[in-house]
């Protein structure tokens, strides 16, 4: 699941950073195949954002979050050029993380 995160972080005049993320993930719902066998769900359970080694935002997700999830929120007290680390972990133990530079 490498390179699954695409993000943009833009700071405005008031010092508020708008972070937008797009994650490439199937977010598969639990379902049954033609033979009635349960096919397990596969979805991101947790997503975190950290700035200066401080976790500033955490999301806990269920199966109802759409495929290739989108997430946006605001970060305070950061400055241009700072890096925000984004990491996720899914219910199968897979994970990925990436850095987004504030512009």
């Amino acid at each position: 699941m490498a390179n699954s995160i695409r993000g943009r972080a833009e700071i405005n005049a008031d010092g508020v950073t708008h972070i937008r993320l797009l994650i490439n993930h199937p977010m598969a719902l639990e379902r049954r195949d033609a033979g009635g066998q349960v096919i397990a769900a596969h979805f991101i359970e947790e997503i975190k954002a950290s700035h200066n080694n401080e976790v500033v935002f955490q999301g806990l997700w269920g199966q109802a979050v759409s495929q290739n999830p989108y997430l946006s929120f605001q970060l305070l007290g950061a400055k241009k050029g700072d890096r925000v680390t984004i990491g996720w972990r899914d219910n199968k133990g897979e994970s990925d993380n990436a850095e987004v530079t504030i512009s």
Partner: protein
Amino acid sequence: MQTHRRSVLRALAGLLFVRLPASLALLAPLRALAAWPKAAFDASSSADVLDQLFKGKTVQSSDAVQLEAPDIAENGSVVPVTVQTSLKGVKTVTVLAEQNPRVLVAQYSLSARSAAPVSFRLRLGKTQDVVAIVETEDGKLHKASKNVKVSLGGCGG
């Protein structure tokens, strides 16, 4: 029953922690981060979810919370939702889809360094109310909801 659920939760939380990859575990958890609450995510009614997450505390409708979502979702599998609030000291933002088989969609924890609006996209099985609950530092729960009609395409597209 409650006790049992919580012990299961605690056990699960332990499991999840072990499964955390090194890269994530390295991040210093400044605030007490919540573990993934399995029982709440599996619950099929709002009451159960509230019971699990907020131990049955009362939820008040509030004008200080805005839930933005389309009146008509053209595609139930990608419904954009934004939660905005003028409240100070927001601790968590929780989003529920009351008629989905699993009611709890997402819960976000904010710190003093992050803020709403929080936007994401969710799946709606059918026309229903989407509910946002904002929990503030004082422990109060503020709610807003919005009915989203899931439209069916005429030609099946």
